[in-house]
């Protein structure tokens, strides 16, 4: 991985020079984050190439403090003129902002160094070598598998294949220098089938991985996409009622994503979360344990150090239903009188805020099939729509689609209904957790069941 290492070193050099110049211009604190990346994206549709896109890019973010005043700037114009404007603007904006006593980098003693960083195996040299031709062949094979799976697949929104590699560096005047490289390959297939009443049904399936060899075969992705599309044919509404709701792992993951937004330090000190003042209390049923683990090998959200240079660590957020900790960066930790959990994330444009890394609801002991078989009557949710969540109150209501569960078996498909329940109660009513978690996504959950929710339909 010499080319990647070299690229990362160039980014570090660039970062060092910008930090030095910003300091010379009067910044008391200067932090540069430098990114570079390249990607190839192809899309095919109806067995023909539709898009081949290939490009590389670089960008530079700068965050400065003058006294306790903070400003940040970003540019993709790395010319000398572009860099000069980046530094001048940052210092000028810092004059405008007002002193924030909580702002400032972590103490030098907290910073990590290269010898402590775990090797998370997030880079695969072979990903960068995938040619446009090979990418097109992968996408074509995926779409073809969907068409060949069943004659009722009559149309397609296409199949896409993407490969990407990226490098980043963080250099701070507080003495931290670090870099990171990563790769990613993914394939998605989206077939379409005709349904009654002129409606069409679209389903999709995808696979993604840091290492090319771990990507699912295109054919398997295409066939699963076809199955998911066909399964929706003949979907109907259900009457309004209270019933048990099973969230499959994709839907469950988006529920977990809502919880994630409510445990981040920023939403706590801003009092924008229903979980303010809830550490140590019950926030979910005792079947629920949730861990944020940045050290997962080959994980999509893995990182050896956080956005402020602190060493990454595994944080147990919820243990047997009880909230153990919020996820904190240095700023939110100071606001709350706590210590950083190493959860800082720095956006390319320079802002710092806590984030999750690989957040996983830990698997239970029964299989997904056993969980469904154990449900007499209920709704099995595979997809959700809309943005009906209020983090301040936990109120949750979203559109849902999936299947009726009738006597322990999946019955007819369901669409155009909403499911509602405050998230606090929803998590406390989880009465079964399956064992089918996978780590394609940085937020991951197994299938779980909520004992009772309100379904609005006809």
């Amino acid at each position, binding site marked *: 991985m010499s080319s990647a290492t070299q690229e990362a070193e160039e980014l570090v050099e660039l970062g060092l020079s910008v930090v030095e110049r910003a300091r010379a211009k009067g910044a008391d604190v200067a932090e540069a984050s430098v990114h570079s990346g390249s990607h190839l994206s192809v899309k095919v*549709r109806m067995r*023909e*190439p*539709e*898009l*081949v*896109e*290939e*490009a590389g890019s*670089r960008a530079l973010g700068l965050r400065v403090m003058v006294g306790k005043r*903070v*400003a*940040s*700037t*970003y*540019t*993709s114009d*790395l010319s000398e003129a*572009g860099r000069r*404007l980046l530094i001048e*603007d940052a210092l000028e*904006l*810092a004059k*405008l*902002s*007002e002193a*924030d006593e909580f*702002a400032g980098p972590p103490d030098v003693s907290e910073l990590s160094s290269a010898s402590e960083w775990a090797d998370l195996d997030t880079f695969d040299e072979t990903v960068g070598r995938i040619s*446009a031709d090979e990418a097109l062949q992968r996408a074509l094979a995926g779409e073809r598998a969907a068409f060949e799976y069943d004659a009722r697949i009559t149309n397609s*929104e296409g199949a896409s294949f993407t490969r990407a590699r990226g490098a980043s560096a963080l250099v701070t005047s507080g003495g931290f220098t670090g870099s990171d490289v990563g790769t990613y390959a993914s394939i998605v297939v989206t077939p*379409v089938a005709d349904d009654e009443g002129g*409606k069409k*049904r*679209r389903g999709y399936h995808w696979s993604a991985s840091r290492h090319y060899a771990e990507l699912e075969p295109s054919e398997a992705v295409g066939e699963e996409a076809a199955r998911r599309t066909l399964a929706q044919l003949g979907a109907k*509404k259900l009457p*309004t009622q*209270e019933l048990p709701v099973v969230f499959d792992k994709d839907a469950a993951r988006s529920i977990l994503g809502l919880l994630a937004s409510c445990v981040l330090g920023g939403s706590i000190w801003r009092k*924008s979360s229903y979980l303010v003042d809830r550490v140590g209390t019950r926030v979910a049923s005792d079947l629920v344990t949730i861990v944020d683990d940045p050290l997962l090998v080959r994980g999509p959200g893995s990182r050896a150090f956080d956005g402020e240079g602190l060493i990454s660590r595994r944080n147990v957020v919820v243990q047997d239903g009880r909230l153990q900790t919020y996820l904190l960066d240095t700023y939110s930790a100071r606001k709350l009188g706590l210590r950083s959990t190493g959860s800082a994330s720095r956006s390319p*444009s320079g*802002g710092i805020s806590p984030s999750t890394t690989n957040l996983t609801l830990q698997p239970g002991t029964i299989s997904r099939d056993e969980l469904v078989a154990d449900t007499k009557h209920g709704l099995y949710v595979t997809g959700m*729509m*809309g*943005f*009906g969540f*209020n983090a301040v*109150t936990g109120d949750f*209501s*979203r*559109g849902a*689609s999936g299947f009726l569960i009738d006597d322990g078996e999946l019955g007819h498909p369901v*669409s*155009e209904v*909403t499911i*509602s*329940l*405050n998230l606090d109660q929803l998590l406390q009513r989880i009465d079964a957790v399956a064992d089918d978690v996978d780590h394609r996504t940085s937020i991951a959950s197994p299938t779980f069941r909520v004992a009772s929710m*309100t*379904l*609005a*339909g006809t």
Partner: protein
Amino acid sequence: MTGRYHAPFSQQGSHAIDADIANRLLRIALEQGGDYADLFFEYSVSGSYAYDEQILKSARRAVSMGLGVRVMKGDATGYAYCEELSFDAMKRAAQTAAQIAAGGQPHSPVGVTLRDLPDRYPVAEESIDVEGAAKKAILERADRAARAADARVIRVDASFAEGVREILVANSLGHMARDRQPMMRFGVRVIAQDGNNRQSGSSGGGGRVGLEYFDDKTPEWHAEQAVKQALIMLDAREAPAGEMDVVLGPGDSGILLHEAVGHGLEADFNRKKTSNYSDRIGQEVASELCTVVDDATLPGSRGSINVDDEGLRPTRSVLIEAGVLRGYMQDRHSADFFNTTPDGHGRRESFRSHPMPRMTNTMLLAGEDDPEDIIRSVSRGVYAKKFGGGQVDISNGDFVFSLTEGYLIEDGKLTAPLKGVNLIGNGPDAMRKVAMLGHDFAVSDGIWTCGKDGQSVPVGVGCPTIKIAAMTVGGTQVGAR
């Protein structure tokens, strides 16, 4: 030229691009046999200010610049971009994009000529060039007003975002256009607390306007609206669940149009026959009360543009007329397919992305009913005032959107405020159930951003008061009154 930020590719810039350079690059782009090519130069500067806990906590600015080259051969697109404007870098991007047509015969582009454009951005001075203190003062005023409004207000966040996007588009049909697109958005969000009950409220607006926007809608006015919403929500009760009449307030509710019908009328989905509006031009797809247009020409609106991102001129497109489907929103490629005139809907997020048919300002035009009569006609239902956002499944038209402010209607009157309301339905079905339309058409204040295929673009929406007979309301209260 005044002001600090100008594109290097502008006429007086350090890397000025003229018709000659554009022609040379287009020729390279078509060297492998592509049948169409365009160049999209973009220089975009954005700034933001966050006012929080009574101080201006952070100030940010970002510059993004580059060239996107697109080459098409039939339905296939080759796309590449570069962030450096040296001729070599631009040439490499053109050669990479050209590969989509590899093996074909070179094709000659039509030499480009600069087009005259209308001016739909009534901006006295671009806010990005106004001294920061003026923007800070606006945020302070909003903060002060929100805190003074009620003792239950425990937090206030005010934000100001601004930007200017300078573009130069040249295509192998011979069109070349330069445009400088300003944008501004202001918002205030408050949290009010009463005992253990905490609720938020927000208000905001903007568009392709300057700071004179605040002459009409003062920061204090927005602060009062946000506080009012949070306080109303403190008294809100659980929403009913099930089918009932729904009345949508004017302006903001246009987001329903955007989701329920707008996306399904974007021509790419119809060219591919993956929309539930495919092959339905000339058919009745909505109640005869409904006329829906997409209009890029509204002065100052967030969705308005002088030229689209393919160098074509946007117009006012009639999509549905008295309930009958008249046309789709076209970009150049889909217009070729449908053998019609492109109407300037080819938009893209940035030089890093290829254009697609997108909405600009999507509006349901006014009807004749008195808004009061519309509410009076409902015995039990929901009144939707403010929206958080929505989503649609294009293939079947099913949509969901969530309210941030809604009320129960009982016996023709607005009674209790409701929390956690979601409306779910099907686009064509909901449009057929439009039973009354108010004469109170309004355009929503500029806050909306539309996402499609991972690309975000600013849009506008507008509508009058609308009554939809029977929609599913997703609350928690089954059978409750």
